[in-house]
């Protein structure tokens, strides 16, 4: 069951539905009665600059699921190299569907900062992007993902990550959602000194929905995972967080920490959260925290007493709540882009 499969076959029966436990808050079957026709090739000359413009050594564009560079759908970073790559998934489509794939391989010791954006200039499209990421021994990947889909789009991004010992994955996903928008990350974690940081930020307004789902499978001793997701929902928007960390039998000395904290900014907005730690080993340190609440009314009043309007005070306090996730981004340029992006979303929504 996957959106990619449904797009390939044109069969709506392949779509995940609320009957699938992992999709119960992001039902696609109920949304799509038929798979839309395939998206056109798109007009590369009409592309605007991406959000990470000027920060990368190389830019790769995937337009309506098609690769615009000569590299093809597989990217390898050679051993010992240190690179910054901008990867842009662009939907230039209206009422059509497309699917794109990428395999990314980091050789042992390779270092990559990947600035990934999901951009749109169309409407009511269906987009699926699937990534297969392999990190060799001691390789390090910082992946920053900025998802800016159209309000009425249906978009699914899934990444399957395989780590090697001593490898490090540092991931930050920022999204404003769509009609249905899901970002799914699955990590196979061998332990052996490897580490994963899976952070997320959702800032959803209007009638949008954003779903951040992840699963980390600890398979060996001495692995660590940290996860911090923060979200704010307003209007009739909905945020979904599903985080699952599985520690398999024998994966001793695993250190796993998960936090999800959300602000509900309006009466009709909603957050659904399912943090799960499934631990089958004895000698582990695992913790999770989950909080959902409203803005602090006293802090809001304090800011207003100083002359700040209610809308601006709400935006300021919401930004302050979310910014912890942005501050954890290591790449300075990307961190600044992310900070600006959060501020812009809050300006637009207020």
């Amino acid at each position: 069951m996957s959106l990619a499969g449904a797009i390939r076959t044109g069969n709506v029966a392949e779509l995940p539905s609320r009957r699938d436990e992992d999709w119960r808050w992001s039902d696609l079957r109920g949304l799509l009665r038929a798979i839309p026709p395939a998206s056109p090739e798109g007009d590369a000359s009409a592309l605007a600059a991406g959000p990470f413009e000027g920060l990368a050594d190389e830019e790769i564009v995937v337009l309506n699921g098609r690769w615009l560079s000569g590299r093809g759908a597989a990217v390898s970073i050679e051993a010992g190299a240190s690179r910054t790559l901008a990867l842009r998934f662009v939907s230039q489509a209206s009422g059509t569907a497309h699917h794109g794939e990428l395999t990314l391989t980091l050789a042992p010791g390779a270092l990559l900062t990947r600035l990934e954006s999901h951009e749109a200039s169309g409407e009511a499209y269906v987009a699926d992007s699937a990534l297969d990421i392999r990190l060799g021994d001691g390789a390090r990947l910082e992946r920053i993902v900025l998802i800016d889909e159209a309000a009425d789009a249906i978009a699914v991004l899934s990444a399957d990550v395989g780590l090697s010992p001593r490898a490090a994955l540092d991931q930050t996903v920022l999204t404003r959602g769509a009609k249905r928008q899901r970002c799914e990350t699955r990590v196979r974690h061998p332990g052996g000194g490897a580490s994963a940081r899976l952070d997320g930020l959702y800032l959803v307004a209007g009638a949008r929905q954003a779903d951040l789902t992840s699963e980390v499978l600890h398979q060996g001793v001495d692995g660590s995972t940290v996860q911090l997701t923060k979200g704010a929902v307003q209007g009739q928007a909905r945020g979904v967080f599903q985080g699952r960390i599985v520690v398999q039998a024998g994966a001793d000395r695993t250190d796993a920490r998960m936090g999800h904290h959300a602000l509900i900014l309006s009466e009709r907005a909603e957050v659904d959260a399912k943090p799960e730690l499934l631990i089958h080993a004895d000698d582990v340190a695992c913790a999770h925290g989950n909080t959902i609440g409203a803005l602090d009314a006293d802090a809001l009043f304090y800011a207003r007493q100083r002359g700040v309007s209610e809308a601006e005070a709400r935006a300021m306090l919401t930004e302050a709540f979310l910014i912890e996730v942005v501050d954890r981004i290591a790449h300075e340029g990307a961190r600044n882009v992310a900070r600006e992006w959060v501020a812009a979303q809050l300006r637009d929504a207020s």
Partner: protein
Amino acid sequence: MLSIENLHVRIGEAEILKGLSLEIPAGEVHAVMGPNGAGKSTLSYALVGRPGYEVTDGTIRLDGEDLAALAPDERAAKGVFLSFQYPLEIPGVPGLTFLRTALNAQKKARGEDEASAPAFLKLVREKAAALKIDFEMLKRPLNVGFSGGEKKRMEILQMAVLSPRLLILDETDSGLDIDALRIVAEGVNAMRSPDRAMLVITHYQRLLDYIRPDKVHVLAAGRIVASGGPELALELERSGYDRYASAA
């Protein structure tokens, strides 16, 4: 400048202020003293429009303009400032950011140009130095992890930068040692001016040794029950509030 007439304020079902009247002319400092539960903090919150403090009767006017009809931020832009008894901690917002946001919001509401970054920083550095506030502290989230004294100094710094016309000090001396009290009082006294009015709300006479009031009022059971000169505060210190509690 500030004119309060027959003010009735309710919090939920409970009426806390029951016909309070008070006039503070420009250039004067008035102290309001009273026992616990008299309605002192309710008065300060009602003046700044805190949600939940419902004015059911009477008027609050600043230079003839009805304040009760304005939102808290609109009152602030008119020059009303409250130094909180318990200043809030604002996680994630550096003091400088908070202060600049507030200053520019007020300027914008008044139709003035925003302060430039260099002009703002110069102003803050100067005022912070006078209050012996380490400038580095302003880069930290506002009041988070600050001591009681540091929080009160941050209140006075905000007051100095925002330069309000009506200053309300709610129990500003609480939580301060003598040295901190002196610094805070000097900061407040530096703001005395012929076109400002000040309302100092306090339990104890001690603060009034440092911030000399022109008039002292006794608030008991929701009304002003006595008014006089600075000597009234000394008398209260000697004899307590008992006889006013019965007068109310």
